[in-house]
Each structure stands twice: as C-alpha cells, then as structure tokens.
C-alpha cells in the first residue's frame, strides 16, 4: 500500500487525455507508449518494498525476503512487444506522410471523406 501506485494512475490519465485531444499522429504514438509505460510502472510498484533484494539465489544470504519475480518476467515480454509495436506504428506514419503529405488527423479525415 504505497502512494507510488497512484502515480501510474496519473500517467494513464495524462496519456488518455493526450490521445483524445492530440491532432498529430506522432503525439498519438507517444501517448500509446506512455500507456504501456504506465502498465510497467504499476506492475513493478505493486511488488516493490524497501528491504527486499533481487530474486537471484546467490545474492540471498540470511534474509529470505525477495521481490516477487513473476511481474518482472511478465514485464520483459511487455517491453519487447511495446518496442515492436512502436516501430511498426512509426513506419506506418512515415508511409502516411509520403502518401498524403500531412500528419494531421483532421486534415487526413477531410481528404479521405
């Protein structure tokens, strides 16, 4: 029960607000990245405590209090998938800029419809 968990909720709110009001595609991609980062922050804050050590057996001597290794193993996959999705979205945005000549959402909708 710590106040750090509320921090990741605030990051979620900021990125949702950015997704609603931003007019540039690059800003939307940055907001998606912030959503993913807030999920990582929440999972790692949830198991964090000050007197625990890293989950490696050779570093534990007397105190048997370790950090829960399960969220860390899940977050490794989440980080790699986030990097892959961000690269794909950036390549999409480059192709959209080459085809339409703009990256503005309103301008794109006006030209298509």
């Amino acid at each position: 029960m710590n106040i750090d968990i509320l921090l990741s909720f605030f990051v979620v709110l900021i990125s949702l607000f950015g997704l609603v009001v931003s007019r540039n595609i690059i800003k939307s991609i940055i907001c998606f990245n912030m959503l993913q980062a807030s999920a990582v922050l929440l999972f790692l804050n949830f198991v964090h405590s000050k007197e625990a050590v890293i989950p490696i057996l050779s570093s534990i001597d007397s105190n048997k209090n370790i950090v829960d290794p399960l969220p860390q193993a899940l977050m490794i996959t989440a980080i790699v998938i986030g990097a892959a999705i961000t690269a794909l979205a950036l390549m999409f945005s480059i192709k959209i800029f080459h085809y339409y000549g703009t990256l503005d959402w309103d301008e794109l909708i006006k030209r298509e419809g």
Partner: protein
Amino acid sequence: MRISLILVCISRLLYPFILLFGFYIILNGDKSPGGGFQGGVILATAFFITYFIDPKKIINLKLLVKIEKYLFALILIVACISYFTNGEFFTNFIPVDSPIENKRIFLILLNFFIGLKVTTGLIAVFSAFIEEGR
C-alpha cells in the same frame, strides 16, 4: 551528415567491448542479472555503433529476415524436444532426475538463440529506418 573524428575513434575503441559485454550478459543469464532479451538489445547497440564508423554502410535486409525466420524455427524445435524425452511440450528437455548442473545446458542454449533473434530483429528495424531516411 558529417561525423566528428573523435566520435569515430571512440566508437572504434568501444565496439569490441560492447560485443563482449553483450555475449557475457546472454551466456550468464541463468545465474546473474540478464538474459536473452537484454543481451540481445546490447548486441544490437554494438551494431548501431558501426553506423558512426561508416555511415554509407549497406547491409542485406533480406538475409537478416531470413536468418530471423530460421532462428524462430530453431527456438520452436528446441522447445519441442522435451516431448520426446519428458513427454511434455515446452519445458526442459533434460530428464527430471538428472543432476541440477546439467539443466543449465537447456537454459544457455535457449537464451543464446533468443538473444540472436532479438539482435537480428532490432538490426533489421533500425536499418529499415536508416534506408527510409536516405
């Protein structure tokens, strides 16, 4: 783009050490902090440094994607061997009652393949963006 001479010299000096560090992280992934994903990213960083040394370098993207496909098939095969030795998919292929030290073989093998796969994937992504900017 003009690249400073100091940056080129330092990059040439640093390149083998980053390669060594990446392989150390990958191969010691089962007893110290690290593993396949993290070490693969460090190896990819070592490759990015070669763009400072020679900016006009051209690499074969088709070959990279082909290598990555074969590595993915290899990871699947290594993970499925355990069906014939232990009777169960996606677990360690060393028999259960063997000594603990032997089980490291599977971990090191799979960590190495995953590290190489992440390295080739990130090099392909980075090179595609470089090609786009030319």
